């Protein structure tokens, strides 16, 4: 088991997006790195071995939070601390600020970027240990066995792999109906956040639709949800520096006690942030009260297929969704 010894690699530090995209195309076996909070883990364990790093953290154009008529644009290189402390995010897109504030630890949030958080790889401990599982190109899943230690794994969408989306920010981004801005040398495209994340049934080796040569440059939040009623909660073993066992993010527009619109998303229950459309449908038009919340909770876990150690996620998810509907 080779661990904790970073191999040598070439380092490129472009100062423009164009430069980064060109390098990414021209340099073989290269890897884009920003905050590095996911990448360096892989390199240290020598489980992923790029020969060159393209460090994009110096591209100032990809940093910052900008409000416009259309809503809010947050550069991909904006740190989670900056998001958590931003006045405009806190006041108008509160669920994003709360989610960012619950990621990992203060030190990691100071280095970690929005783009990196959304693009991070699965945290299944078997996969991270460097085993030859399906996701790593092998032909087995170590977690989905009678004795697999799969307490953190998925309730939904298992397809050979049972890893979950580890992000705390992603459910908030989906709840806010955001779009992910992706650049490549072919130009720029915008993808709804819901479509950005992909499960193992689509491609077992990737967590997002990003292809080689593409880079996330920003996330755009439509004005529609600014100032809505929000809820975010994360449950983990530790109060800090821990991945979610389950998290929930929601945005609701409530008029005179009645839920007019709702987007409710759970993380860590599926390989992608799980948007709970049936819950949304169940609560829209209903009064925001305990009865509606109870129905929402029960609806949330419909179709769950737990493995050996993760059955607790069913009641946990139900409880969190109930709270999201009742307490936002």
């Amino acid at each position, binding site marked *: *088991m*080779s*661990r*904790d*010894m*970073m*191999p*040598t690699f070439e380092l490129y530090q472009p100062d423009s997006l164009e430069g980064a995209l060109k390098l990414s195309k021209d340099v073989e076996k290269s890897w884009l790195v920003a905050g590095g909070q996911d990448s360096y883990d892989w390199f240290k*364990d*020598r489980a992923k071995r790029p020969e060159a790093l393209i460090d994009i953290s110096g591209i100032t154009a990809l940093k910052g939070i900008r409000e416009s008529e259309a809503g809010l644009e947050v550069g991909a290189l904006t740190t989670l601390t900056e998001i958590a402390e931003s006045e405009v995010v806190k006041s108008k897109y509160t669920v994003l600020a709360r989610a960012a504030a619950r990621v990992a*630890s*203060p030190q990691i949030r100071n280095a970690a970027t929005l783009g990196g958080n959304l693009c991070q790889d699965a945290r299944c*401990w*078997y996969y991270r*240990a460097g*085993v030859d599982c399906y996701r790593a190109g092998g032909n087995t899943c*170590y977690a989905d*066995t*009678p*004795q*697999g*230690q*799969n*307490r953190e794994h998925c309730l939904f969408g298992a397809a050979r792999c049972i890893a979950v989306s580890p992000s705390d920010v992603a459910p908030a981004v989906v709840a806010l109906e955001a779009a992910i801005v992706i650049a490549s040398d072919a130009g720029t495209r915008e993808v709804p956040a819901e479509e950005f994340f992909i499960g193992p049934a689509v491609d077992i080796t990737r967590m997002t639709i990003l292809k080689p040569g593409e880079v996330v440059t920003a996330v755009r939040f439509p004005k529609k949800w600014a100032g809505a009623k929000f809820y975010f*909660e994360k*449950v*983990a*073993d*530790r*109060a*800090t*520096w*821990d991945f979610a*066992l389950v998290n929930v993010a929601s945005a609701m527009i409530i008029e005179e006690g009645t839920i007019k619109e709702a987007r409710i998303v759970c993380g860590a229950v599926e390989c992608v942030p799980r948007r709970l459309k049936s819950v949304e449908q169940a609560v829209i038009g209903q009064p925001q009260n305990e009865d509606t919340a109870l129905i929402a909770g029960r609806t949330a876990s419909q179709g769950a297929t737990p493995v*050996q*150690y*993760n*059955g*607790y*996620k*069913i*009641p*946990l998810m139900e*409880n*969190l969704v109930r*709270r999201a509907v009742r307490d936002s």
Partner: protein
Amino acid sequence: MSTFKHIGKDFIPHDVVAKVTGTAKYAEDFRADGMVFCKLLTSPMPHARVKNIDAAEALKMEGVLGMITADDIPAGPPGFAPSLTREPMYVGEPILAVAALSEQAAEDAIERIKIDYEPLPFTFDPLESLFPGGKDARGDGFNTGTLAGLPPGKIKWTAADFARVKTGDELPMGKPAEEWNYGDVEAQFKQCKVVYEERFVTASLAHHSMEPRTCMAYWQNGKCFVHASLQSQSFALPPLAQMLGVKPEEVVLIAEYCGGGFGSKGSAYPSMVIPAYMSKKLGKPVMMRISRAEEYYLGSARNAFQGNIKIGFDASGKLLAADVYVVQDSGAHISFWDYRAFGDALALVYQPKAMRWRGVPIFCNAPTRTAQRGPGQNQLACIMEPLVDRAARELKLDRVEIRKRNNPVNGSLAGGDEGKRGPVTSAYIKEALDKGRARFNWDERKKKSGQKNGPRVTGIGVGQAFHPAGFAGFDGLLCLKPDGKLHIHTGVGNLGTFSHSGTARIAAEVLKVDWENCVIERGDSRKNLPWNIGQFGSNTSYTMTRTNFVAAQDMLAKLKEIAAQDLGGKPDDYDVDGAKVFVKANPSKSLSYGDAAKRAIALGGRFDGHELPKDINPMTQASATALAGQGLIGVAKDNLPWSGQPAAFAACFIEIELDLETGMHRIVDLVSVADCGTVIHPMGLATQIKGGAVQGVGMATLERLVFDPQNGLPANVGFHQQKPPSYLDLPTEMFTDAVDKADPSNPVGAKGVGEPLLGASASALLCAISDAMGGHVFNRTPVLPDMIVNQMAGRPQPRKPLSINTQ
């Protein structure tokens, strides 16, 4: 000594400034001319035989200097962890080391080494190894054995033992490796009002030393220089020399700073000698930096338990009988006797009228385990304290009162074995409970128990724990120099408690020397250090105050003798203070300490170390001889009377808010009180108490080692997977206090401190969780959010009552 000059007063230990400014040099910070690096190749399999090592390509790589394997290091005793092995018994066990000009080059070479492994059977469940024909962790035929008194052997239970019980739910309880009993257990159970019988599991958890066990070594002029990370100084040197195959005087051990050990760096450990053997082979200094992941392989963990506990109380809450069976998962190699300590501590802390203890340690394919802060005693606290609460609830008794109803007092019997039960030197656990009760405002606050704020429920808990706390028979060594400075030589390691200085102050106290005029000589075996106990087992406060006391008494007598010779009269006519020895009746007639030191040198003989007591250890003898002629020597072996078991206790009170819908809790308040005898160093004590409390939080609700039993893989080899508590998991303020009652068997009233503080907070937190849930539920550590969520939702728990090493 009624009014103390130093004892009980805060001081700034000399190493603090270096630690906080970063100038302290730990093992990794040293360099030597021509130094190279080595890296370890560790096993990817939980159990295998190395059939062939092909390093030809690796050794040809640029910058690569050489390799050592198990063939290059003499094997230790059977069953003990080797430095390098051809039969790895856990994932991460070192097989070979490669040296190179850089660590990257060494690691790159390691990747090119081809090893032919023959996979062997492995197990992570002691019950599997106890099953007739079941898989064993080791290929040498041993499945049991422990550090002292139980040589490696093999124990298998019968199929009938297993057939009697429901697999995974009940403990078969076949023939134990060891057992004892006293009193008539069955008769006492018949007298009980309530009897509980439970199966329990306590998980293994890592020591989490902040500084990994990095080591640098080189050979020079016939000596081996070792820069190591150790809790202990003098105590670690002889075993290190033995592992190096040289005499103790041929080793220079430098261990001035240590970033935590918690039991895992108490003495020399196997990986420590790898750079020394590599250095011998290459003729160059070798640095072996241990990575965080490697620290989880080499850095030890607490022994895990599967057990059965049956206890019975009478209507007054008195524990009448206890019958326990502890199966210990010892990891792959010989480990500590936690399973014994579990029984011994139960017999002492709760004083049952009759008790039976049975235990068996079994090897599993997990990394080496060793003593961790309160080994066995703190697992007991976690299992027993919530059961005491269950009895209190059923018998309608106050939870503090039921504890005091059972607690020992001065002279109560310790230990369990009928013929060997001796008294404790002092026991003020009742006073600790009372002090904590008042500080926590228990009587008022317990009324909040069960109060709901939405899904959040208030839980109030009290916990207590014990650890033996001292030894005797080691040496003290002092040298008063002509400049009037008192050099206090101490073999106490720097494990973070400041006990190297705290215990040294006893010499300053006896000789009434200002602290500014004291020099602590420590951290390097060239500094002429005495033979001292290791800094483990909460021993230092008790043991090393005694040695410094006797050495100071020796110096005091010599000072008075010299003064009487020079100034007339008898030694008894003299006293000391203000760096002078003076005539009691006429203080103006005096001799300064500096002049007394000069006179000692002139007098020679026993005054300046040219003649030494016969009963001191050879290490002390050599150190004192090296100092001879430099000043007035105070040197003595601790022959002070010692009868009974010094006993350290702690009590902790915790209020939490538990969210029944998420299983997460928040600690609202924490009060911890130590019964550690006379307080020597209040600031150091407060730090100890808080540190112990924090570790207890981890043991109770966060930390556990997990292994995939099908593939043998370790699930947690990093801080974020191991989950020790962070400062954001704790209240910003924690309250500490001490009973501060002297232990009569120690010249300054001191006894041990460190270990029970962990068990007290761990058990208080578990009791608070049970309290918030409306009663005792889990006989398991750690208690995790998913267990609480399942319980509250009425879902079955995925873990069986005896599932071990699982998530």
